[in-house]
């Protein structure tokens, strides 16, 4: 019984982590983290401004569905 509830709570934790990861991807937070890692930078106003400039052109060409 205890094992089953432990498994269930583990499943919920994993589902929560995946959901959070999906939100981070949709809202470009994951892309910003990758940008920081790629350029070996830490988060700052300047770093975010550079990221936005880099990201904006690609995003502007992206279709949005009807």
């Amino acid at each position, binding site marked *: 019984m205890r094992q089953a509830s432990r498994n269930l709570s583990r499943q919920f934790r994993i589902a929560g982590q995946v959901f959070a*990861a999906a939100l981070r991807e949709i809202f470009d937070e994951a892309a910003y983290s990758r940008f920081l890692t790629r350029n070996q930078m830490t988060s700052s106003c300047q770093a975010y401004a550079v990221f936005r400039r880099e990201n904006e052109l690609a995003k502007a060409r992206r279709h949005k*569905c*009807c």
Partner: protein
Amino acid sequence: MSKVVRPLLWLAIAVLGALALATVALHRGEQINAIWLVVAALCSYALGYRFYSKFLSAKVLALDPSRATPAERMENDRDFVPTNKWVVFGHHFAAIAGPGPLVGPVLAAQFGYLPGTLWILAGAVFGGCVQDFVILFFSVRRDGKSLTEMARDEIGRVGGLVAYISVIGIMVILLGVCALVVVNALKASPWGTFTIAMTIPIALLMGWYLRRLRPGKVLESSALGFVLVMLAIWGGQWVSQNPAPAQWFTFTAPALAIVIILYGFAASALPVWLLLAPRDYLSTFVKLGTIGLLAAGILALRPTLHMPPLTRFIDGSGPVFAGNIFPFAFITIACGAISGFHSLIASGTTPKLIRRETETRMVGYGAMLAESMVAVMAMIAACTLQPGVYFSINSPAAIVGQAPETAAMTISGWGFPVTSVEMRLLTQAVGEQTLFNRTGGAPAFAVGMAQIFSNSLGGRALMALWYHFAIMFEALFILTVLDAGTRVGRFMLQDAFGHIWKPLGRTSWYPSILLTSAIIVSAWGYFLWQGVKDPMGGINSLWPLFGISNQLLATVALCVATTIIIKSGKVRYAAITFVPLAWLVAITFSASWYKIFDPNPRIGFLAHARQLKVASSSARLVNARLIFNDRLDAAVTAALILMVTLIVAESAMEWFRVLSGRKPAVLKESAFMATRFATEEQR
């Protein structure tokens, strides 16, 4: 699960699904509960995903778990990033879910709930999901190439050109129609207009928060923006109840159209990222939250459907839009069943994120099932309204009359009882000035959604807040589609003009930016203006045009898919894309034929132009413009159908050449490379 239990479980799902479908399809006389639609949809989707998509994966496409995807081979941490399948699923769903699956089913509800629901279920399982899945998979096999590139490579130059023109064409019509839906939702509505106006300072604040206070914390700033938008909705009530501020935010339809056209131009031509990017995030946040909330509301409330399964308007005389079930129900509901626009997403960002080939099934087929479920929920929201109320909101003044009493009498005469008093009470409950003649689908959906929400939470006291929440949600993300679409259209034009004169192709050259922005905005702005000035409400002529162009793009996608299947030597399986293709060709051809040549002036553009021509001389000046609009719409429809003919003819010739052995079947796939993820998983 044991080998005995599993088949029994699927058998139980099949029986339950059949029972729910039979209830939905065969029940007559009594109202049914919306939960039957939900059960029918969930069982159909489960069976479609488990069996049909598995068959496609194993037999038709032969997904290879050992093959590296472009995300792995070309990984650059920017565009190409191997990503968890659930994360890609969420990303893909957020990109394909737009206003279409909400508005289309609401409009098609004029036939009753049955035709639209059956088309949403069958269209998604056998058409839309298949299209999204195969295009995603073929793009993954071709380094994430776009639909236009695949059409050029696999079909030929004409295919590529038609795909390119269709994308521009659909975008222009889509943006015009979307803008019209917003205008019809916000005209004479100070509360709604105030809420949307407030999203501008809120987005600027979010932009400042993102750039200065907490760089990169988009989720945080979106949550903050959401709270502020909710406060703006609450404040809108005060605005609407006080004459002075109410006057500032009360616009006529033409005035709103001009504001939206200027907004579209500014969004495309000016560097206003501080406003647009946060608004985009906010709109996605609200969209995902509201879809979840609507699903929870329907499950909690389990509302009764007041709309009959079939209405008298199956004969084509409907007030929302004219035309018979075939083909008009099938072009009115596009995004919830099959949408060509999805093929642009499935061959855009998504293939560059897929980690394993086998995951294309869940992302491509699965996300479209989720979108289809959104369409079913929109159908439920519309059909929970009393039919009299539904037709009062969605019928144009030219058909039911301007005065509330006349409109109520006309609609009651159709067999859908409604009184002007009942409508006045509902109008007061949602905090509007009128609900009559609010065509476009958005206000009807908002009333339905507000009823579901207020019955689940807060009672009638919160009805006005929920209504304006729904209006804000629809208008916000339609405006996001509008500004993003205008920019994408501008880039596409700049790319094309660059072939004529190089400087025009420079995306940062201001004369080019201004010229291409002006062309795109003028094009959709013209359709918007035409819709605003149309006495029939605009939706009657423009929504079918949008449906035809969207299904045209799906035709292009399915031609590409069928060609690739034939070239890969699997002609015995070509029917899986050929049958939906044949269906789409049939509906786009017949819908276009009706829209151009039908002798009924409410359906045929040319018949309507002829009717206007014989009008009295006093109306001639106004009619000259309407006649021009009708002829323009007929010409646009003819151009769309010409493109369908070209792409189908070129594809058929390619199939003939390959099948008769006159041309070797050469696929333009990228070379095989083994994936490292397979061995990583084994460890």
